């Protein structure tokens, strides 16, 4: 079944993860993180539709049931709200569930448990309860995913107190952030992107974490600050590398965690460049782009030399067809165009 595969393979990743050492695939990096967590902590369990099937959730859960048993790595009924509640109840009692989803769209079924329960218990009962759980999903795109199988929902959840939101963009981070998320005592959402699943990168063996709430520079430059995460950053990097030939030097910040946000790194860069472009895999309106754009105008207004810009999805449901998708999703060309305009100003 070509389902996304063709497109995934056609993406050229021009900026591999820096550093030397073992190179590993993205999905395998997540697989390693889960393996280490399961071995390390008997409280960890992994669940989700098909985590034990031959597809193994893009390979991220491959071999885990064989190794840790069907009690700790298990398939679920098609009951997203119920299973989110089950995870919440388990987490409230000392377990560390990792609940895997093929697509973020399915998490919308569980918003009541996620937004009104998991994220609130710790505060609501005055700290008696902690809810250490990880909810993982891979954003769909391409091959007819369409309006109901392609939604990036991080923007919908950004405002919800008590949650943490992580969006890795390299195999290194995918592993390190997963381990950090599992270790965290709060509900942590990890949004992956399908098109990163076949990316390779340097991944250290064994246990390490990438701290939640800390961004990282992926490219240094002084003309403009580009802020984002996950696959949107990949596109921005491609645009930035193109523009370097014209002497435009972009500074690119990979936020890694959208909530809590690393404001310091953004401020530092913006102070230097005076220009900020926010990119996201989700709708530009009312989501991640809006929050960071507003923040810039609120906290770092004096640094700003030109209007804040955002590149996300237009205010339109995702069309399924291939040609329409090309018009719908911003590509490196489009991002490069925005950067050019901004730098000219």
């Amino acid at each position, binding site marked *: 079944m070509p389902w996304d595969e063709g497109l995934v393979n056609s993406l050229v990743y021009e900026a591999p993860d820096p550093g030397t050492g073992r190179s590993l695939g993205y999905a395998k990096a997540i697989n390693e993180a889960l393996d280490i967590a399961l071995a390390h902590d008997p409280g960890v369990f992994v669940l989700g539709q098909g985590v034990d099937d031959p597809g193994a959730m893009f390979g991220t859960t491959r071999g885990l049931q064989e190794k840790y048993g069907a009690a700790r790595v298990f398939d679920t009924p098609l009951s997203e709200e119920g299973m989110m509640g*089950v995870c919440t109840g388990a987490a409230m009692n*000392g377990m560390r569930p990792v609940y895997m989803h093929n697509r973020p769209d399915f998490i919308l079924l569980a918003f009541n448990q996620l937004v009104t329960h998991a994220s609130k218990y710790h505060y609501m009962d005055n700290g008696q309860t*902690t809810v250490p759980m990880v909810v993982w999903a891979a954003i769909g795109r391409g091959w007819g995913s369409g309006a109901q199988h392609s939604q990036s929902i991080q923007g919908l959840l950004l405002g919800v107190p008590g949650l943490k939101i992580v969006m890795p963009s390299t195999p290194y981070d995918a592993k390190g952030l997963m381990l950090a998320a599992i270790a965290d005592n709060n509900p942590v959402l990890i949004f992956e992107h399908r098109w990163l699943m076949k990316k390779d990168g340097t991944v250290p063996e064994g246990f390490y974490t990438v701290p939640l709430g800390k961004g990282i520079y992926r490219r240094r430059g002084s003309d403009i600050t580009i802020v984002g995460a996950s696959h949107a950053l990949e596109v921005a990097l491609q645009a930035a590398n193109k523009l370097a030939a014209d002497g435009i030097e972009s500074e690119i910040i990979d936020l890694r965690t959208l909530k809590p946000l690393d404001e310091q790194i953004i401020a530092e860069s913006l102070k230097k460049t005076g220009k900020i472009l926010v990119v996201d895999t989700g709708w530009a309106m009312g989501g991640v782009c809006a929050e960071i754009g507003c923040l810039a105008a609120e906290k770092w207004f004096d640094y700003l030399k030109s209007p804040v810009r955002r590149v996300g999805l237009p205010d339109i449901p995702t069309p399924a067809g291939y040609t329409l998708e090309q018009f719908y999703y911003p590509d490196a060309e489009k991002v490069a165009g925005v950067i050019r305009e901004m730098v000219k100003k």
Partner: protein
Amino acid sequence: MIRYEYSENGYQGWGAARGRFQDEFLVRLFRDMLRIRLIEEEIERRYHQDQMKTPIHLVIGQEATSVGCCAALRKTDLLYSSHRTHGNYLAKSGDLKAMLCEMHCRINGCVGSRGGSMHLIDKSVGMAGTSAIVAGAIPIAAGSALTAQLQGLDRVSVVFFGDAGTEEGVTSESLNFAALKKLPVIFFCENNFYSVQSPLATRQPPREIYKWAAGYGIASVRVDGANVLAVYEAVREAVKRAREGGGATFIEAPVYRFRAHGGAGDDSHTGYRDTAELKAWEEVCPIETYFRFLADAGLITIAQREHMHAEIMLEVIEAFDYALASPNPEEKDLYAHIYSD
């Protein structure tokens, strides 16, 4: 018009109970119910003073379910609840002072004034979590039971909810999962025939709730919710099943709330239910019928009851005084526990 009738036999046929249970135990059940009633009546009496700025959902008339159930549980068993928490919290030995402090929005409330009456939680006694969202705690209790199973504990998790709770899809999902995994969980449905002011008939087709639940392939029973001993026995059996690996049980207990859905006093006069219906159920008040049963068995006298009453009232007044004298939160308190370290 009486829409929903009491269709059980009270304590008829329970004469043998005296032999099966210790006298003290039987009397304690009475005291526990009476205590809940008196606490709630005092809350009700003081509610118009607006010192308790919190919604209240009284269990007056529904005391036998909480007391009967908790008598069959260990302290380490976990109880989850809905918006209607008072009876659950008290029966599970939740601290009265901490409860009243919470209801008075004081910083030493059981959840530091963050939750109010819908979030009476005291983990030290296994009052483990509540939800103000109908059916919200049901999958959470299933997750709690999964934990016990994964950790090899013989702990049982129980969740209380109302008849309307069975209409939420997540309840079906939870029953399915509990049946699939044979989870040590008890789903306790207090069917009081109303959701706020909506009668059951406008929300569910004619069918018996416990039979519907049986469709998930778990043990499912109906028990007289006005009979504390019947409730105790049903829960005891369910607990035994859960501890022995036999999986989940659904219990439907028909009950009747003597007060409005929320707030103080009855609201039958607004017309959504007939006052005659309320009157009929008051006739089978779980406290009075049980008192007569105990008195007939020679286990309690009116004088003893009066003494018990006075003793409880002393405790209650003291607890109210304590709550009223307790400090309010300060601004810094708002910022604690946003995230857990």
